[in-house]
């Protein structure tokens, strides 16, 4: 019985005008575009300089500022107010005002001022940009001091930093494995839910309900195809990560497959639960959207899980995504072994159990 039903699902999926394309293209698009977009690094601070001193010192300092990769000089203004206008127009993000007598004050009075104004509506960007400028200015101050006094910095330590697992600190290495989780969630969570609601809307569901097909069999027949599709999507993900980014898992790919499978069981079950409560597409779309958004935002995909306040971490702990994202990053970057990841595995298995029992119970053949 199950065989016939699964066969039917596969035929319907492949015959659909849209689904096969979505299943193939969605992972590609996400993995190729998102890592470039979903990035908190600030790479382009547009700067306007108001150099009222026009001295060799001020010019040198401007040169140092521009030399920074993340700062982009886009305008030179004569007055501070004119430069502020540029901020209001969103033409620049930061204005640095070098006052008259900047050089003279520094050399003679050993003390001079400088004004940095940043548009901080976007707080992260504002702080980061401000920090870049501050550290360049401080460095410049130290250099000049050494130059004038001829005394080297006091004795100190040399701090060597090693960034393990991601030596270049490439943000893509961090995002790509986790984005695979997002793709998998959307495809194997959303699609079976739509599928079931679609059958409800068309009336096919009633025909199945009066047949001897039992709840678990029916649900299994809906899920199995998406489990298979989930594995296909992960495989596409591995290939894209490899070919496009040169990212290869440090750990075992089998570990990833194992976790992907367990995870798919959990999210497809979530889709089912929602489809059992929803009667129309619109409903199921909104419910899925609502929950998946919360799950994704609270799972540490974009922002560190530890940064969330305790109450949010507690909610996040109820998201299977949290654990799978952690696992993907660990296996991909650190080469963690299955034995390192047992706690995550147990938690995911618990999700699978609870979610799928709920799905079976909430699927009503009767009223």
């Amino acid at each position, binding site marked *: 019985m199950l065989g016939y039903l699964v066969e039917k699902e596969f035929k319907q999926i492949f015959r659909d005008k849209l689904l096969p394309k979505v299943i193939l293209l969605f992972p590609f698009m996400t993995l190729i575009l998102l890592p470039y977009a979903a990035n908190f690094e600030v790479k382009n601070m547009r700067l306007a300089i108001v150099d009222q001193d026009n001295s060799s010192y001020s010019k040198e300092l401007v040169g140092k500022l521009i030399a920074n990769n993340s700062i982009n000089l886009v305008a030179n203004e004569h007055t501070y107010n004119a430069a502020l206008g540029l901020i209001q127009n969103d033409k620049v993000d930061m204005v640095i005002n070098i006052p008259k007598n900047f050089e003279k004050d520094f050399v003679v009075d050993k003390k001079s001022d400088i004004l940095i104004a940043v548009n901080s509506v976007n707080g992260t960007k504002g702080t980061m940009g401000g920090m870049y400028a501050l550290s360049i200015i401080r460095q410049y101050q130290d250099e000049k001091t050494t130059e004038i006094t001829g005394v080297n910095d006091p004795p100190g330590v040399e701090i060597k930093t090693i960034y393990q697992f991601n030596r270049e600190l490439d943000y893509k290495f961090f995002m790509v494995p986790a984005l695979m989780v997002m793709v998998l969630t959307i495809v194997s969570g959303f699609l079976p839910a739509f599928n079931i609601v679609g059958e409800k809307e068309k009336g096919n569901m009633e025909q199945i309900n*009066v*047949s001897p097909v039992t709840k678990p069999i029916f649900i299994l027949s809906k899920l199995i195809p998406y489990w298979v599709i989930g594995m296909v999507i992960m495989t596409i993900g591995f290939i894209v990560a490899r070919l496009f980014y040169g990212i290869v898992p440090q750990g075992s790919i089998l570990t990833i497959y194992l976790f992907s499978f367990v995870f798919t069981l959990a999210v497809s079950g979530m889709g089912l639960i929602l489809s059992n409560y929803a009667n129309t597409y619109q409903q199921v779309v909104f419910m899925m959207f609502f929950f998946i958004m919360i799950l994704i935002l609270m799972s540490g995909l974009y922002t560190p899980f530890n940064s969330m306040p305790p109450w949010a971490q507690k909610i996040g702990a109820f998201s299977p995504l949290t654990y799978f994202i952690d696992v993907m990053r660990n296996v991909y970057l650190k080469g963690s072994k299955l034995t390192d990841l047992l706690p995550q595995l147990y938690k995911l298995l618990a999700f699978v159990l609870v979610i799928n029992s709920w799905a079976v119970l909430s699927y009503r053949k*009767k009223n």
Partner: protein
Amino acid sequence: MENVIVVNNLTKKFGHFTAVDNISFEVKKGEIFGFLGANGAGKTTVIRMLCGLSRPSAGNATVAGFDIRHQSEKIKANIGYMSQKFSLYEDLKVWENIKLFAGIYGMKKKDIALKTDILLEELGFQDEKQTLVSALPLGWKQKLAFSVAIFHNPKVVFLDEPTGGVDPVVRRQFWELIYKTAEKGITVFVTTHYMDEAEYCDRVSIMVDGRIEALETPKALKEKFASNSIDDIFYQLARNAKRTDD
């Protein structure tokens, strides 16, 4: 003759609303049983209960010898069902639909292939074997849906307004199929809006406001109400209904 459907004091309430009010009747093996009633009279609710889709509030019933409360899964293996909403898969081909439903009812692979060809020939659908159901005209779809509903040789087949929206020629053909089915000993439980169709039934019941107001052969019914059209009788009874369309 044995009774295939036995209904005793069946009642269904939705909150304070009594959709089906203490009805009792029997249907014999191989009988064509017409189940008439205005919209909202409670027909569909009765069918849903008999198919095990809905739990009765009171009373009981057996279908094919199985209790509708406790043995609904067994009932499902022994009935066929076709609803007013067309319920084959539009995105599957004709033979694929047949294969799917036959498979669901546990038929063997060999038998399915063989019987599929026979069925398609009977219906004159040989050329449409590979056609997507969505591409068939409505009348064909209905005939196919009916054939699929009885493909596994159920004891009873429930037809919920099977001929809605099709032209008179197809309706005739459809009733021929129903007769053939009844000759094979399959009980046909059919609801309809067309009163001329009621004349084709062995017995008809007329439901008003959740109660069965009449249950006779078409002939006896006409004598009893001294009228020569079931249409009139239906109108007389239904006029007293307090409920309107749902």
